[in-house]
């Protein structure tokens, strides 16, 4: 039976992910203990909240090293929402609170995070955060994450910042919200969803099942 570990770093909303995985019948453990994370067959990295705070927590709990090692040893690893954003190089979130022009992320994949409102092309009559159901335009026909998922499927988003992946081969789906942004990534064993599969009804559950079957 596949053992799934969900990383616990006080970044809110681990419960929804845990509930969804348990509902699907998986053996799930919420943990910040690197030993538990190393032993897992699959690791889920959830996240809701601010980029800078989350990176601070990861450092505080000594999780940045273990995450890098776990992904290096090819364990299937899924970042959800902020969890996906943290996999990248940096974000402009929270810059007002620091003297930096951006906050460093884990840097596992090339790309950066910026706010919808910072993009000059963004339609400013649109509400922020991007909150609600939006569709996925699938861009990788060999995607393991979206196996059996129809192009144009709806999933649930809540975010004010979005990903610009630097390597277009890493992108598994894009979504339109004023602009086109990268809504899912897939690079070998590293997967990421900007949306919340645990809140996306049946489609979301299929996506989680796909991930746990890798």
């Amino acid at each position, binding site marked *: 039976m596949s053992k799934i570990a969900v990383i616990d770093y006080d970044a809110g909303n681990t419960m929804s992910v845990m509930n969804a995985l348990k509902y699907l019948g998986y053996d799930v453990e919420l943990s910040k203990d690197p030993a538990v994370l190393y032993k897992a067959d699959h690791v889920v990295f959830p996240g809701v909240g601010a980029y800078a705070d989350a990176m601070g927590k990861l450092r505080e709990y000594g999780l940045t090293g273990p995450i890098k090692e776990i992904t290096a040893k090819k364990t299937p690893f899924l970042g959800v929402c902020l969890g996906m954003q943290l996999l990248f190089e940096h974000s402009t979130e929270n810059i007002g609170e620091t003297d930096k022009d951006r906050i460093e992320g884990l840097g596992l994949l090339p790309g950066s995070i910026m706010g919808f409102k910072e993009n000059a092309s963004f339609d400013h009559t649109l509400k922020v955060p991007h909150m609600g159901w*939006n569709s996925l335009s699938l861009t990788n026909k060999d995607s393991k994450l979206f196996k059996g998922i129809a192009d144009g499927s709806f999933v*649930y988003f809540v975010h004010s910042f979005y990903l610009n992946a630097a390597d277009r081969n890493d992108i598994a789906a894009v979504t339109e919200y004023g602009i086109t942004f990268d809504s899912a990534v897939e690079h070998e064993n590293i997967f990421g969803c900007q949306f919340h599969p645990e809140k996306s009804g049946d489609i979301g559950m299929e996506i989680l099942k796909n991930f746990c079957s890798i």
Partner: protein
Amino acid sequence: MFTKRIIPCLDVKDGRVVKGTNFINLRDAGDPVEVGANYSKNGADELVFLDITASSDKRNTVVDMVRKVAENVFIPFTVGGGIRTVDDFKTILRAGADKVAVNSAAIDNPQVISDAASKFGSQCVVCAIDAKRRADGNGWTIYKHGGRIDMGIDAVEWARRAYELGAGEILLTSMDCDGTKEGYDCELTRAVSDVVEIPVIASGGAGAFEHFLDAFEIGHADAVLAASLFHYKEMEISDLKDYLNKHNIPVRL
């Protein structure tokens, strides 16, 4: 394609869904998890659970219900009713709710919005507003405590303030229209939606397909809420979405 949201609202008392108007003749209408799961299966985009339990130990019953819903229903849900402090937010969010709606407590102490937003994130904080047209017809004022006390505060200004304080969403109920089945107050909805940069959920008055269309086209609502219309099976969400789709409103089918 970004879609508009259809949100059923369930009144819950002592951990059970209830049906009835104005808190009289309440009838048991089922288990929140079953009713919620059913709505999810039938196309609801989110759920709102409004707790109307009066007793002082209500918190435990609500927490229990929230936990069970979170374990079995996998679309976003908001919990409101009697939320007073940041601690209430914490309890309900910890139990598994995605958002918490606050109404009277925010009027008494607007700081609760910013405290909850900074602690848990704006996306978890819904400011629920009950508004009624002024007697002279000029604009609307907000009401407290289930719509009983006129605060004399302008509704549009209050919504703007709630947004500035950090609310992530506004749940706007028209007291004039609520229960009438004659349509939402589109003027009110538009007035609020046009001054805040966060989503606005229109509530109060839904009775026919056209009302929902108007709420989106005229009212500029991002989402719509309805209760008895769906509960009494006077309208199926799937039929509503078909209608809206035919009228070029983007909906998740």
